[in-house]
């Protein structure tokens, strides 16, 4: 068992309440060269009202993980394993929401076991998503307003009430309601489109918002401002946010937890403070050493040797062993699970047999200001 029972693992200041539980999630693609695993046995708990940042290089399975949370993996990908959603207690569910998914009596939803119509309701009403291609997520021949209307109508929600909520969202996102609503997508700037898209994702007051590289293709200032708006949204609407990105420094100050993906699985999960200051996995350490910064010497930056693994032919044992400087025979045979490092309170976990050795032997320095805030 990679991760301990979350409900039991309590720290002094907070109770961890799991909202999404992912177990043995695998995504398989049949390719002419053989079976490709683009999500390989992922176990993870996502806690209520946290901001979880998922980082990793291109093609590490980040987007697949995001899609898996909504059972939205595109054909011909096949998702297996378990994704369980724990809705909030019914007392706090807003009036317009259709009855929660507790038909079975228990207060949990097996996301991968829903019928099509149940899935249609789960998506957007409970778990919502902002896509990677945010620039193209609006229908170019439709005004922004109609995107909201059709979504509200498709979910049989009360139009006036929802549009009121959208006005609140637009205020929080610093968007001019009248102007944006009567525009076509091409008449908006990238940042406006992105924020309108976030509002569209939140129109039905979902509990979880999955964002797949939401700030790619935006300039740095807009990225920062969207990040700060996200934090406000989380506080204001009690959201749980899963934030997929390849930009570690962007989320360092935002996230409550960071999950690092390599070769289609999580290799390290932890609070930013401990994960960034003293990463336990050799890959994370190498990743942090390769980050560019204004103040560091170019000599200090080191690329990670080798290339990323082929999804058809993932290395046996620890998938990082071909590129890992401290790998030994055990790493080639045995696949390490995520285990607690440090004091073992579940705050920081890594999938490596030799975390102590990694910390001792592989050095890196943090430069980015936002990371030093941690």
């Amino acid at each position: 068992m990679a991760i301990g029972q979350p409900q039991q693992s309590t720290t002094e200041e907070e109770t961890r309440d799991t909202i999404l539980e992912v177990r043995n999630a695998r995504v398989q693609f049949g390719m002419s060269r053989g079976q490709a695993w683009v999500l390989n046995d992922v176990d993870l708990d996502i806690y209520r009202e946290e901001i979880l940042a998922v980082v990793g290089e291109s093609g590490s399975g980040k987007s697949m993980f995001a899609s898996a949370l909504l059972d939205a993996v595109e054909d011909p990908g096949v998702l297996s394993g378990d994704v369980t959603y724990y809705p909030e207690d019914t007392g706090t569910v807003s009036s317009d929401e259709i009855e929660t998914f507790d038909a079975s009596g228990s207060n949990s939803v097996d996301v991968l076991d829903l019928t099509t119509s149940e899935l249609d309701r789960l998506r957007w009403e409970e778990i919502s998503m902002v896509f990677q291609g945010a620039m193209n997520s609006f229908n170019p021949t439709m005004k922004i307003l109609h995107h909201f209307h059709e979504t509200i109508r498709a979910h049989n929600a009360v139009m006036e009430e929802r549009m009121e909520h959208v006005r609140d969202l637009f205020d929080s996102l610093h968007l001019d309601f009248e102007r944006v609503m009567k525009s076509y997508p091409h008449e908006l700037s990238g940042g406006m489109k992105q924020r309108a898209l976030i509002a569209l994702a939140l129109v039905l007051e979902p509990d979880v918002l999955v964002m797949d590289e939401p700030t790619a293709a935006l300039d740095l200032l807009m990225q920062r401002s969207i990040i700060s708006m996200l934090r406000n949204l989380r506080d204001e609407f009690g959201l749980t946010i899963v934030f997929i990105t390849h930009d570690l420094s962007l989320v360092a100050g935002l996230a409550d937890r960071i999950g690092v993906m390599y070769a289609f699985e999580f290799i390290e999960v932890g609070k930013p403070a401990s994960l960034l200051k003293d990463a336990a996995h050799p890959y994370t350490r190498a990743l942090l050493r390769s980050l560019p910064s204004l103040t560091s010497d170019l000599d200090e930056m080191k690329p990670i040797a080798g290339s990323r693994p082929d999804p058809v032919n993932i290395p046996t044992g620890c998938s990082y062993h071909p590129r890992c400087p401290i790998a030994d025979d055990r790493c080639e045979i045995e696949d390490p699970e995520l285990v607690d490092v440090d004091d073992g309170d579940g705050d920081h976990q890594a999938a490596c047999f030799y975390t102590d050795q990694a910390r001792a032997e592989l050095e890196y320095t943090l430069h980015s200001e936002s990371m030093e805030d941690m």
Partner: protein
Amino acid sequence: MRYYVQRVFQAIITFVGGLFLTYCLYRLMPGGPVQAIVADIVSRRVRQGRPVDAQEIGAQAERMTGINPEHGILEGFYEYVFNIVVYQDFGRSIGFADPVFDVLFRAMPWSLFISGYGLILGFTATVLIGTLMAWNEGTKTDSGLTVFVLTMNSIPYYVGAIFMLVVLGFEWGVLPTGGRYPQSAEPGFNPEFMIGVAKHGAMPILSTFIIGFAGGSLGMRANTVRIMGSDYLRSARLRGLSTNRILTRYLARNAILPIYTGLVIGISGVFSSGVITEQIFQYPGVGWYMFEGLQLQDYPLIMGGFVFFAGLTVIAILIADLTYGLIDPRAGDAASRESF
């Protein structure tokens, strides 16, 4: 607004330019129409032993063609256009002994009837078949329809028309083989006439339909497949929109954009193909009169037909230009739209 004015202006210039070129051909061709008519009059006069007076012959030729051979090309062109615009005078048909305008004007509704219906059916089939193929991409439905469409596309419409005429008209006798409506029927709002019109129009419409749909649907399929992979379609699906809405408002609407202009400009192609279609089915529309005029060397009539087809083409392109902004908000009056 400026855009629309500009387009209308361009269309007028195009039309007048086309008209002028045709007119020059008409005048300058060695042994061309006007010369032929003049020669005809002269030889008749010589046979009858009457005096050959150039001015008188020129005036007579002008009455017949609307063009006075004594005048220069520019002057003559001005008079020709002036007569058309002010008096709707295209000259006098030689073969039908009526003003050309009357002959063509009487035939026009019938041409519009068969071409219009053929086009509407063709467009609908293009969009439906294209979307259907894309929706079932890679399945048997897709490849089956592709083979069907390619086959239809490779059969020239006139071969299809003759085949229909032979089978439906002569072998089975289901549909009439010529004419616009039954001889016995009284034109007006009565069932016999209306059913007759529908029956007589059926085969010309069907053969126009064949021209309309085949090529376009492959293009439609390609566009649809591209849009099915787009982010906004995926987003629409996850937002739980109904399949119906996704198909119409997202898929078809966006896939039509690139082929829309082609479809509208295709209107003129369909009308000019009427020359052959109407001849095959002996359906007296504008095309039929043009072909008759060709055989009778009825030059004024042919010239009138040219003007008709040129006008139609220009109008079709103009419509495509003016309406594209309506179906694609990104185009058209984009410059005048507030952008922020």
